[in-house]
């Protein structure tokens, strides 16, 4: 144990003595939080929606048919209770609910005014905005078709509600994304490089000849980065709460536990890369191209996964950042508890275990 502490202390000395590393470690999260202030917009197709038709009359049926025909929407279910709607939102299955009040047609015909409620999941504000706009234009379109036969215009007012994120803050969306990105970068690249560096300079050989156990070499390499990454999580959260005015709706403890799990996933990935490579450049390249790019593309924080072709959607499942992104979004923004994210947590843990087993096996082969 004393040997282990000696080793970990040495690792910290390496990190703190290297200004460039320090800058990457602590400067990057701040930069990214500030840079990603502008989220990207994208078209959204085939979003699953739910329709609650309490009216069941001519007008509501006609509007529903119009919505159904649009390529933006796919009607998941009809008529649900308020409880069911909430459950569907929490699972993240549906993006939008359209509610027709009872007597919709009657009110429309007699008072020339109808109301439709539109509720959107606004954790992803761009998507929510677009979807509500689509619905509104469909309704307006219907309204116009009525106007042809009527002298007094009919007015249908869609009453839009943005769930979870009423002000449509873009920050809601990118903070979990940046968290995933930064942790991925810090943990994977830094660990991989720091282990490969020892191989390159020849100190790894000395360590392997020493009575210090090889597995401990790897573990003690990971400890400082686990610690530093947690510091990063804290700084990102502080920035988002105090600079971006984004509250943390769920349990902070749970957020930290899940972050630790994701950090460990990334550390094992870094260890895996370091075992497979023998130069710092290669390790860096693989970490950047092989990890960063999929994280950006497939975590769902820049480009909606629902919108990708099926093969890419399947691939996205293998990207740990995707699951972490869902978890952080659920905890921070939706304020959900463990019961809502246990599946994602399990998948992350599974990926970690798998990577760890593969790394351990390969490490032994190399020593033989």
């Amino acid at each position, binding site marked *: 144990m004393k*040997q282990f502490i*000696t080793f970990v202390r040495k690792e910290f000395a*390496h990190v703190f003595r290297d200004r460039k590393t320090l800058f990457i470690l602590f400067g990057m999260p701040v930069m990214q939080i500030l840079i990603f202030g502008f989220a990207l917009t994208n078209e959204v197709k085939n979003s699953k929606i739910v329709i609650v038709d309490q009216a069941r009359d001519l007008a509501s049926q006609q509007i529903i048919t119009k919505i159904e025909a649009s390529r933006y929407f796919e009607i998941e279910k009809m008529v649900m209770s308020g409880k069911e709607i909430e459950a569907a939102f929490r699972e993240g299955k549906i993006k939008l609910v359209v509610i027709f009040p009872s007597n919709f047609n009657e009110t429309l015909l007699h008072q020339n005014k109808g109301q439709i409620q539109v509720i959107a999941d606004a954790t992803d504000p761009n998507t929510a905005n677009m979807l509500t706009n689509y619905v509104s234009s469909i309704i307006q379109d219907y309204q116009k078709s009525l106007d042809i036969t009527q002298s007094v215009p009919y007015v249908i007012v869609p009453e839009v509600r943005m769930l979870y994120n009423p002000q449509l803050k873009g920050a809601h969306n990118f903070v979990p994304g940046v968290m995933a990105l930064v942790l991925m970068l810090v943990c994977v690249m830094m660990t991989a490089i720091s282990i490969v560096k020892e191989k390159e300079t*020849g100190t790894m*050989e*000395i360590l392997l000849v020493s*009575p*210090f156990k090889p597995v401990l070499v790897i573990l003690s390499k990971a400890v400082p980065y686990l610690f530093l990454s947690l510091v990063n999580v804290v700084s990102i959260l502080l920035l988002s709460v105090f600079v971006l005015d984004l509250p943390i709706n769920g349990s902070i403890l749970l957020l930290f536990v899940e972050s630790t799990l994701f950090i460990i996933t990334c550390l094992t990935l870094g260890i895996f890369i370091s075992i497979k490579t023998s130069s710092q450049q290669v390790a860096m390249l693989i970490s950047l191209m092989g990890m960063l790019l999929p994280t950006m593309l497939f975590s769902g924080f820049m480009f909606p996964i629902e919108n990708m072709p099926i093969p890419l959607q399947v691939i996205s499942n293998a990207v740990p950042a995707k699951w972490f992104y869902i978890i952080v979004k659920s905890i921070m923004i939706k304020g959900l508890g463990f019961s809502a994210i246990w599946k994602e947590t399990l998948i992350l843990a599974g990926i970690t275990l798998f990577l760890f087993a593969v790394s351990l096996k390969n490490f032994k082969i190399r020593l*033989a």
Partner: protein
Amino acid sequence: MRETVIKTEKLTKRFGDFVAVNEISFEVFKGEIFGFLGANGAGKTTAMRMLCGLSVPSSGVASIAGFDVYKQTETIKKNIGYMSQKFSLYEDLTILENIRFFGGIYGLSDEQIKSKGEELISQLGLQKEAKKLVASLPLGWKQKLSFSVAVLHQPKIVFLDEPTGGVDPVTRRQFWDLIYNAADKGVTIFVTTHYMDEAEYCNRISIMVDGKIEALDSPANLKQQFKVDSMDEVFYQLARGAKRGD
């Protein structure tokens, strides 16, 4: 009878069809400076790696300080020191930090590290540099420091893999003073080198050609045996026949 600290019998390492080390048998005694010579690719490094417990032999028997290289690698590691041809201290740590680290992973107590570290630094005359980064030292000093760190935990045997590569003759001479010093204290030195003047400093040397030990004796006896005046010529006569190159 002198105490045997390294003993191998038909020690062999194969990589697929390639026999890197072919049935080498030899003994090294306590306090001896044993030169392990051979052209590039002769199998020196592979043999050394097996003795250090870094690589598992394909066949044959070997014991280091009385411990078996197959089963007792962990015990062996506690009893040996190792210095490789690459400079292998941490350049971004200070001299003191390096001493503390390597002392620490060999399980020395804080007091031991302190007293031995001070002794080492004064022996090398590095008092003023103790808190400087190793990167700022000249290569010769780095190599001397590297050796001193390798014997810090008082190993029974020290393996030196081409320790003086790229070092000037004066520093090399000083480096060998350190080796003699350690040998006088009973540390066995197992050293590979390409410098034939260094071979002359050894008590006994072996010369490996194509994975086999072709000659093993004291430098004086070898010169007599091959009827030549210098180790250079002994080495040349043996290595000329080698089929493997780089």
